[in-house]
């Protein structure tokens, strides 16, 4: 009898262990890729990119609109893919026309988001389920997302506690579920897009890829940034993992 009770207890314990183990090993959150992937910057028809490997392939796809680049010591070059653009920038090429400098940088940033997305893996856990690009997001987001153009602004930003703490956002317009435009009190206009969610750095925790287009009221200024942020616990802060530099 005692042996039977022991055996039953053992069986119950084993079942619990097994069920817990099973849940842990089968819980996977597939990466999310926004269908608004900025491909119309290069192609007349938007590309459908739904997996990491799609993004990897897209890096070699030939654009409908080549871009002219110049170099200090070499002849001008025409590029028509992300890989070509990446290589050319690495070799010191820049926009052939001065007035297209910011556009080439933006295109490079888009290519960079595709390259990042080609590495996004499934996550085991996510603390970004309630992520919404609204005013409260700006209160939580790192200061790195703020538009700092002048040197004095860059210095001031170092002591700010969040994006909104520095920028003092006065208006947020939601363009879609995954894109909002933020207006700050000094004339900055920032259009933020959620491009993807997934495990970027292999720690099993879901991260998200953000694409920021900066402009100003009444001026031609334009710049782009790519951020990867995450949250490491339920009540944890939004943390910057990477501010992606030029590819």
């Amino acid at each position, binding site marked *: 009898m005692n042996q039977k009770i022991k055996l039953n207890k053992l069986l119950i314990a084993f079942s619990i262990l097994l069920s817990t183990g099973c849940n842990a090993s089968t819980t996977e959150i597939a990466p999310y890729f926004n269908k608004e992937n900025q491909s119309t910057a290069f192609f007349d028809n938007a590309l459908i990119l739904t997996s990491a490997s799609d993004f990897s392939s897209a890096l070699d796809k030939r654009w409908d609109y080549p871009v002219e680049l110049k170099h200090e010591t070499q002849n001008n070059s025409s590029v028509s893919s992300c890989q070509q653009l990446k290589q050319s920038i690495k070799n010191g090429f820049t926009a052939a026309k001065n*007035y297209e400098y910011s556009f080439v940088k933006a295109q490079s940033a888009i290519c960079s988001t595709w390259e990042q997305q080609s590495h996004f893996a499934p996550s085991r856990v996510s603390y970004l389920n309630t992520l919404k690009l609204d005013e409260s997001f700006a209160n939580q987001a790192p200061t790195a997302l703020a538009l700092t*153009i002048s040197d004095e602004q860059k210095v001031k930003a170092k002591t700010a506690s969040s994006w909104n703490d520095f920028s003092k956002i006065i208006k947020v317009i939601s363009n879609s579920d995954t894109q909002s435009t933020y207006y700050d*009190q000094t*004339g900055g*206009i920032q259009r933020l897009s959620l491009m993807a969610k997934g495990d970027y750095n292999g720690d099993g925790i879901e991260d998200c890829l953000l694409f920021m287009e900066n402009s*100003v009221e*009444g001026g031609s*200024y334009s710049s782009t940034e790519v951020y990867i942020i995450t949250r490491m616990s339920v009540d944890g802060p939004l943390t910057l993992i990477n501010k992606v530099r030029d590819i």
Partner: protein
Amino acid sequence: MTNLRLVQSVGVGGKNSPNDIKAVQTALNQLKHLLPLNKPLIVDGKLGIKPETSNTVKAIMLFQKKIVGIIKADGRIDVNGKTHKKINEKMAAKKPSIATPVTESLKTKLRAKLEQYEGRVEHMYLDTKGYVTVGVGHMIATAQDASQITFVINESGISASKKEIEDEYALIKSKPFGSAYPARRFKSFAKLKLTDSVIDTLTNKHIVSFESELKKIYGTTEFNKHPENVKLALFDMIFNLGMPKLKNSYTKFNKFIKEGDYKNAALESNRGGIAAERNKYVKDLLSK
């Protein structure tokens, strides 16, 4: 007075000849914008029985602490000493100038530079914020505004009708836009264009509008007094940054411009995110 000439020292323990004292009082009055002087110094060549309590010596010490950077200011200006040299440096920066409005020659130079950095586009396109734009960054707020501009049909050169202009405005407005969409992306959708003379007219209006905004920041008379190269630098800054950003995010730059300290203004003129060449262009203009 364009610089301070001293024969002997002035201030606490100085030789204090009346002419030298007057020269210092005049010079400090010219630089009072750098100091929080309640009122100008009386130019009387006197420091009183106790020079250290005189307004002139107090002003010297203020200048030494605030501008020269001497923590333990001694209230004395020695001939060709640190304080003397700094006064002359600041006086040289604050050149007396004649107020000159924006000349046609300057506008021509400005238009050339704007075209280089902003582009010159004969057809409608969407800027990075999604506004319909044409020419050299000329934003068209509504279809009705567009219809007031003389567009011609690409193929024939004939003036476009109001409806043709408004239809094209609507078509361009419907297209995707963003930081990665240059103006040439919209060319294939455009059947209308502007002539060179219309573009030049719009650009001149734009220049006048920005000149007005620059005067709001720097003062009308004061703006006109800046040398031509400084005006060119300021126009580039405001075309690129817009009035709110230039006014609110470049406070140090603006302060130095108002003080006539173009050297330090150049150091504060950097714009993150733009081509190094454009930053250098403005720096060089301010460093001339």
